[in-house]
């Protein structure tokens, strides 16, 4: 039963991701991107990663897709010029993809795939005492994996500061008088009109 759900949602993911890259209208692209993320959230539910599924819905659909939509609306691009050079680059990309996929199929020998005996955090063992995926992540993320946690904190700091430095314009557009600057005016700077 689960495997049919997997096939169905995989099909939806692939087809909507193809629509993302081939759509002429950027707004439609963003909407298909949202659909892709939503379906992959359902896929994560099928793979027993409940917290990640909810996180994907909140972060990707709720924040990143909205940010993309903001930028698409903000830039206001005309649609006609977008698909130039499609035929020029498409065959080359297809060749590279063929190489990539054939490499993957050569590397992954599916028949005798090495499955390691001892894993780092055994979910099946831990699930005997805990019942919630969120709590299980919490038990290990802040102690065993705290370096990843702190690095992600610094990455978020970097993104915040970088975005402010890039996107904020210092120039003031409104014409206004500043009372502090008025007080600072010295006598020799004043032009006297007779």
């Amino acid at each position, binding site marked *: 039963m689960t495997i049919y759900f997997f096939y169905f949602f995989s099909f939806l993911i692939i087809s909507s991701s193809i629509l993302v*890259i081939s759509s002429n209208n950027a707004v439609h692209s*963003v909407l298909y991107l949202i659909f892709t993320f939503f379906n992959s959230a359902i896929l994560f539910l099928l793979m027993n990663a409940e917290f990640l599924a909810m996180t994907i819905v909140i972060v990707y659909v709720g924040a990143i897709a909205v940010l993309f939509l903001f930028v698409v609306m903000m*830039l206001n*691009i005309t649609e006609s010029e977008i698909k130039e050079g499609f035929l020029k680059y498409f065959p080359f*990309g297809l060749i590279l993809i063929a190489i990539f996929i054939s490499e993957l199929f050569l590397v992954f020998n*599916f028949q005798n795939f090495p499955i390691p005996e001892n894993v780092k955090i055994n979910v099946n063992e831990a699930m005997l005492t805990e019942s919630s995926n969120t709590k299980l992540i919490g038990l*290990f993320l802040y102690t065993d994996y705290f370096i990843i946690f702190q690095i992600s904190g610094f990455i*978020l700091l970097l993104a915040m500061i970088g975005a402010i430095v890039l996107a904020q314009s210092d120039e003031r557009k409104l014409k206004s008088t500043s009372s502090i600057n008025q007080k600072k005016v010295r006598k020799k700077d004043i032009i006297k009109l007779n």
Partner: protein
Amino acid sequence: MEPFNFLILSSLLFSVGFLGIFINRKNLITILMSIELMLLSANINFIGFSDLLGDLSGQIFSLFILVVAAAEAAIGLAILTIFFKKSNSISVDSINRLKG
């Protein structure tokens, strides 16, 4: 082969994102979206192996990838906005000012 279905799915998704970078030379926003698709395929790989091996580490790394994707989207779109303000276009071909 059945437990490795997610590998095929994620490699296909990665290829679609890869192709999206190639065919959208005039539209930087779609290129950023293709990068998001590629990061999503990496996420699917991590979660699939986490499910297959019964190991929680994959989910924690996947959370880390989520953070990286959010930071990448924020900074990339900020650069895109600045670039559009300067040159009034979002085509890849017009980004040649770094040549000096």
